[in-house]
């Protein structure tokens, strides 16, 4: 075969390949979507504890969030105190959190504020479970987006047993429980 003919055929096949790539891209991108980020749906989360262990980051980008607006400010807090706690105080032996990341402060009788220290929180969800069972459910897990590296395949999402991880638009990156309340009142 003459080189010129060969070149013409190569050009044609190359053009066809370029069209194929373009078609693939157009077909994949036909659904214009905003940038998406990972988030936990608190309604689906079962607090299995894998958020603390399966994130590619150490400690995990998942942290406990506290929606104060739906908190009962209980003295006997299911998220703060161990079920077998000897007393309702800040003693380490009474705390449920394995890393002591919840700070309890007295507000007024009989209310106490619970604040998460996010530098300490490992996202294990133990307090979330306690608050869900005994309280209002104002503690819940969320992906903190200043930490999350937004992996293409989130390792926690893959390990999540309850399908609670989903992609949400980056413009509204949190699924806050307090938003649910704000919508109602």
């Amino acid at each position, binding site marked *: 075969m003459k080189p010129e003919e060969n070149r013409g055929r190569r050009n044609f096949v190359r053009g066809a390949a370029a069209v194929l790539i373009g078609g693939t891209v157009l077909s994949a991108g*036909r659904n214009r979507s905003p940038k998406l980020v990972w988030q936990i749906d608190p309604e689906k989360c079962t607090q299995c504890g894998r958020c603390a262990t399966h994130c590619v980051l150490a400690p995990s980008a998942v942290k406990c969030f506290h929606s104060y607006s739906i908190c009962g400010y209980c003295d006997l807090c299911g998220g703060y105190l161990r079920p077998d706690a000897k007393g309702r105080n800040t003693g380490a032996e009474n705390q449920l959190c394995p890393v002591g990341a919840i700070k309890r402060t007295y507000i007024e009788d009989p209310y106490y504020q619970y604040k998460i220290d996010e530098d300490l929180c490992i996202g294990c969800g133990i307090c979330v479970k306690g608050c*869900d069972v005994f309280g209002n459910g104002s503690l819940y897990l969320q992906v903190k987006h200043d930490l999350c590296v937004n992996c293409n395949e989130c390792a926690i999402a893959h390990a999540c047993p309850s399908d609670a991880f989903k992609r949400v638009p980056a413009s509204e990156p949190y699924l806050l429980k307090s938003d649910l309340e704000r919508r*109602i009142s």
Partner: protein
Amino acid sequence: MKRYVVPPLGGFSRAGSLWTSRLKAVLHTLAYVFLFCGVANAEFRFPMPEFASGYEHPAVHTPIPSNAMVGWDVAVLIAALALASFLVLKRRKRREIFLLTMFSMIYFGFVRNGCVCSVGSVQNVMAGICDPAYGVPLTVLIFFAAPLIFALLFGRVFCAAVCPLGAIQEAVAIKPVKVPPAVEKVLSVFPYIYLGLAMLSVAMGSGFLICQYDPFVGVFRMGASFSMLIFGGIMLVLGIFVARPYCRFLCPYGVLLNWCSKLSRRHAVITPTDCIQCGLCADSCPYNAINEPTPAEAPEARSKGAWRLGVLILLLPVLTALGFGVGGLLKEPLSRLHPTVQLAERIAGEELGRYEGTNIESEAFRASDTPNEELYAEAVELKAGYGRGGRWLGAFIGLVIGCKLISVSILRKREGYEPDRGTCYSCGRCFKYCPVKE
């Protein structure tokens, strides 16, 4: 919302008792229901307190995702591809190409944490094609298409100096040994199998395999799951002696780049002018990517070669059909890649008393109150899907093996040593070894 019976706890010190607070909560709820019919309502066990001391609760800290680097990534990608093309085709200096490679490893790898990468973007594109609801961001589309377009124009310059996965392997390839060409040919089927499996996995919705088994992302992020680190460690140690093991024997995106590069408009050349056939370049290439010139006399009679080619061409549909059949038989093992099928088998096993106790997945499923039958039906449907997908996967692999057999049996006429356009990574090692200078 899950409801639990609150156990009567001793020593409850709230004003009023637990029961009055619960009653209040119920009344609140009723009031809300009456006021906002149909609005999803959160029910609370305890009413939100009204503070006498003027306390105001702190705001929830919600930092927004950083978006600043995304535009940069695309710009750096295009610039690096353009620079790599220039270095490979014009400058022809191994050292300069290697410096760009190290830059890419640091920027796309360690700074940007190796995500999103072109290798993984294949899956997003596939997901975008299969699932109309899945939107692929523009950045990902560019990361998918740009290296392919550059490969169509200038060869695999992306592999040479832009891909962070290639770059980290290039950095550890200290003492590369030659893999026998026959072994290389056989192993080069694996990227096709991996690509097919990954695409099947995306199409069936069982996740992004390429990302789950990314060997180097753990190195870039300085932490990953144990299996990921082991796999990455093996790849890096192996990579000291067998240069770029992931690129050559696994990388699924390399398959597409290989196809595009075969058609490339321009490609790196070893000898700037005329080849003196010294063979030094072939020794320098750790990737078996340099083809030798055609021997002066034909190694066999023309008719014999034509006969073999005819047989192989007839074998092609046979292999494809064989793959189609075998792929269908792989339904069961393939479908176990899917978490829903795994869960269904676990639940069924628990019902039959095959397992002791429950695991996290089955507990979460049982808490969701979905009937088992629904799960089983879904799993059966998925298995059927894997049966169909497995057949296509098998046919694809059969076709690839057939084409590979044909390509090894064809003798192409070459005047001198030439890079193999499909497998050459344009790394530039051979430039230095060629004694012919411009």
